[in-house]
């Protein structure tokens, strides 16, 4: 349901950007904003990747790990879920150097956002694993599989389908949170917009373009996740309609 609507919205958003770009009042800002958008996309992609890795690892550690790992994963999840992303960003960027660890701003952005969203993601992964029918575990046990084999071959492929929609939400959350990185010296889309606004006071064209660009990015993400979901659930339900 709705993929066509989403694609329609995306086309409309891009068309409006295209039309506005023909006007000088708008086209003036486009190159700078696009530059910022590229950085935003880079941070969002790498952050999402880290979030998935952390989410899966933390969920598995909490569910099946030995006590120390379980403990570590719980501490990670609670800290990164229980404090704001902005504070995490500042802590990694401004506080850590006081202890002699200076990280590049881009790295801090990816780390903070990825770890933050990964903490939420671990709950998504856990819920999806628990949603797989118990009989699947039992059948795998009766075939004498090890727990790692069951997870990898039987449980996770089925849990994957259930994970896609909630991960889509988290990715959009992460995309929007990238605006925070303008506060640690990175020239992302939000930073470029503020900078241009301060210099020119052309608030309407600048923030109209920025709004459309964020919208277009999140629509691309949503459409991508919908397609992935459709494909993955096809594999599970093949022939059910036949």
């Amino acid at each position, binding site marked *: 349901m709705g993929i066509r609507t989403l694609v329609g919205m995306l086309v409309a958003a891009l068309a409006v950007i295209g039309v506005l770009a023909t006007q000088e009042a708008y086209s003036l800002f486009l190159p700078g904003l696009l530059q910022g958008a590229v950085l935003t996309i880079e941070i969002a992609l790498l952050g999402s990747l880290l979030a998935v890795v952390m989410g899966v690892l933390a969920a598995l550690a909490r569910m099946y790990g030995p006590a120390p790992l379980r403990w570590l994963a719980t501490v990670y999840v609670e800290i990164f879920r229980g404090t704001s992303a902005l504070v995490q960003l500042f802590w990694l960027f401004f506080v850590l150097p006081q202890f002699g660890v200076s990280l590049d701003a881009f790295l801090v952005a990816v780390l903070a956002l990825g770890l933050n969203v990964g903490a939420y993601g671990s709950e998504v992964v856990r819920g999806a694993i628990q949603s797989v029918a118990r009989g699947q575990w039992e059948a795998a046990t009766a075939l*004498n599989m090890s727990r790692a*084999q069951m997870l990898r*071959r039987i449980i996770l492929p089925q849990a994957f389908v259930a994970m896609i929609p909630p991960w889509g939400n988290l990715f959009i959350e992460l995309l929007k949170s990238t605006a925070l990185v303008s506060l640690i010296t990175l020239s992302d889309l939000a930073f470029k917009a503020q900078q241009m606004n301060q210099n020119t006071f052309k608030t309407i064209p600048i923030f109209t373009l920025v709004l459309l660009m964020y919208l277009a990015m999140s629509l691309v993400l949503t459409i991508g996740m919908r397609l992935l979901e459709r494909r993955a659930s096809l594999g599970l339900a093949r*022939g059910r309609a036949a």
Partner: protein
Amino acid sequence: MTEQPMVRFENVSKRYGALTVLDGLDLEIKRGEKVSVIGPSGSGKTTVLRMLMTLETINDGVIWVEGEPLTHMHRNGKLVPADINHIRKIRAKIGMVFQSFNLFPHMTAMANCIEAPITVLGMKRADAEARAADLLEMVGLGQKKGHYPSQLSGGQQQRVAIARALAMRPKIMLFDEVTSALDPELVGEVLEVIRKLGREHDLTMLMVTHQMGFAKEFSDRVCFFHAGKICEQGPPKELFGAPKNERTQQFLRAVLEAG
């Protein structure tokens, strides 16, 4: 020296909190023997299979398979609870078919049958596929290799599940009410496969069933469970023909009236 029993339950008990599901069960099953377990629901009969498949832990006693403990292992001359490596070593001799089939929905019939032989036994894909093809042929599904479970009827799914279990070359096969979830017209095709298995393979079989006619014709021995204990057991002719125990008589009368 007498031959080791294939399976031996020695004083096995299973409790859930205050509820005792099995109470000091002693049961021996000989190599190649076909044993049916009958009884009212809640009598602990399914629990017997689930404990043997290690899907349930036990609270007391020891389960032995071919003279080796399954639930325990020897350490310094004593029996201690088994670790997962020991359990997997012994469990390899046992296969199980479930009431609700439990096929892997993201895999074709063929993939269901070669998954564990490849990942667990380390078989080469080509060998595993050849064996799976034979087994699917044997259960009458040679033409359905590429079908997903959702494309198969209940009876067909259950036959794939039987082939999948056999692909691991078990010595003992457990059947847990394998026809209970099937439409009546599909029961026969599954029972026919089990009959065939009984004839052609030297398998030890333990089945929980509500199909009294099948239990009578197929088993070497029938055990009637009641309230966590074996109430009466014997050759099917005796148990069905002239049950001695009053509970058995009641149960059989009720089942016959319903059927």
